[in-house]
């Protein structure tokens, strides 16, 4: 009995098996195992201890601060993303490529440097430090600094999602609406927004995940004041360095759940609205 010949562009079955095992093994070892670790450590003393660690006042304060910072940073970046992609995709002007490169800039800056730049402006020895002190305004080691650092690290997410999408969609529909006498706002709300809603949601999803999980940048500007300026990731660090491992992993498991929900929604959007999200997804 001879098996049908293998197609010339197919790998040898043995190669397929070996490569599949290597790929699955690598993902298992480097990605799945750490994720499993988070939940197994969080639950290592039973669910009661885990829940108690999450309901502890400092942990709750950290959850509130994380939600608050994201609730300010994400909508502002969404507004920016819409505005930037409207300017860039609906009009022709010089320096467009350069502007797009500048928008992507925060992605290539180290998180620690992203925090440092605000300390250099608003810190005690920063440009505006003395003035702010006179007026008794706190930016660094307070909510404004945390929000600014979060805004910086999540700055490009929504814009870079919308720019390729709106470039693909062109301008004909909007131009038709405008020529029929629709106002700019009406054109945007009735034509553009329905066209970009899934892409916008996709960008907001990724932006929010990073905003709630940001560690390095926020760490520089927060001052680590327990119950006051610790976000969830910072609270995880404080507990871990205090050898309160169950507590650290309990709060970490909330963040891991957020990551899982984000990935699930992201995959869902990619499968169901592939055409309505941008063509290319590189991050």
């Amino acid at each position: 009995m001879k098996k049908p010949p293998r197609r010339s562009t197919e790998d040898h079955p043995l190669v397929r098996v070996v490569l599949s095992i290597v790929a699955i093994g690598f993902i298992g070892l480097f990605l799945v195992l750490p994720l499993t670790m988070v939940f197994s450590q969080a639950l290592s003393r039973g669910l009661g201890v885990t829940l108690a660690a999450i309901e502890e006042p400092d942990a709750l304060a950290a959850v509130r601060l994380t939600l608050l910072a994201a609730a300010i940073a994400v909508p502002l970046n969404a507004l920016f993303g819409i505005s930037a992609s409207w300017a860039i995709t609906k009009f022709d002007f010089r320096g467009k490529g350069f502007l797009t490169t500048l928008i992507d800039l925060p992605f290539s800056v180290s998180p620690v440097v992203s925090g440092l730049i605000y300390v250099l402006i608003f810190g005690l020895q920063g440009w505006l430090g003395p003035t702010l002190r006179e007026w008794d305004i706190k930016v660094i080691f307070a909510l404004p600094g945390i929000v600014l650092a979060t805004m910086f690290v999540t700055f490009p997410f929504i814009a870079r999602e919308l720019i390729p999408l709106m470039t693909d969609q062109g301008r004909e529909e909007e131009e038709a609406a405008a020529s029929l006498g629709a106002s700019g706002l009406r054109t945007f709300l009735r034509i553009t927004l329905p066209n970009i809603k899934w892409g916008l949601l996709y960008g907001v999803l990724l932006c929010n995940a990073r905003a709630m999980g940001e560690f390095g940048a926020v760490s520089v500007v927060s001052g680590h004041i327990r119950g006051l300026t610790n976000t969830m990731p910072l609270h995880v660090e404080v507990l871990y360095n205090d050898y309160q491992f169950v507590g650290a992993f309990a709060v970490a498991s909330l963040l891991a759940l957020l990551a899982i929900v984000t990935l699930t929604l992201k995959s869902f959007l990619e499968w169901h609205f592939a055409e309505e999200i941008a063509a290319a997804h590189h991050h």
Partner: protein
Amino acid sequence: MTAAIASLAAHWRNPSALPGFALSFGFTLFYLSAIVLIPLTALVIRPWSLGFAGFWQILADHRVLAALRLSFGGAAIAAGINAVFGLIVAWVLVRYRFPGKRLLDALVDLPFALPTAVAGIALSTLYAPHGWLGEPLSELGLKVSYTPLGVVVALTFIGLPFVVRTLQPVLSDLTQDAEEAAATLGATRLQTVVRVVLPTLTPSLVTGATLAFARAVGEYGSVIFIAGNLPTVSEIAPLLIIIKLEQYDYAGASAIGVIMLTASFVLILALNLLQYWTGSRR
């Protein structure tokens, strides 16, 4: 005067039937300047308060040099590991069919979605002397947590999706015509892969690995827990920035920051050149 500005503006921008340019462009420029450009300028200016000699002295410091070497060296090794395994993962995800493939595909983005501090404590516990992986590895004489090797492990974790996600669309678009032609002409499968497939993938493989490298150089959260942070041994450059800040050495912190920023700019430029070069060759 107004006419001159208007003609300049007309020259700079093509007329459009759509409204809202001034508003959207103005807000974009304002927001970009306030959040990104002005703060980055503050960073670039700061270390020069010490003069060129002072700037140089900070960077020539033994501890700073060791930290920079670890951040850049560790990132390079991790990018190399990711180039190899990322290529295999992308190949398997695009070319093979097997149950659970979608789940595996979604999992690749985990390092983007999982907060770095969470990854950091998980990896640290996993590779600690009595951890799930640390214990068997230490019996083999390999110490991972609290060594430079731990830094490489964390940076590999953080960089994987960059390589896979850059390769996947290129691999999907790669029609199998060329491979078929090579096979018809008598090439073995290995020859086809090495001579036909790999050269086509090289630009995206380099791009993906460079993105992974750029991300890893500046990475902080996932590294500091597993690294142990021993000065001159397992202390990364971003951590040294924080240490200098805590000592109110703003200029010293900025000097290291400027070096890292410069490295990122050079990498962006190199990637743009690579894209331009491969684009114009096609």
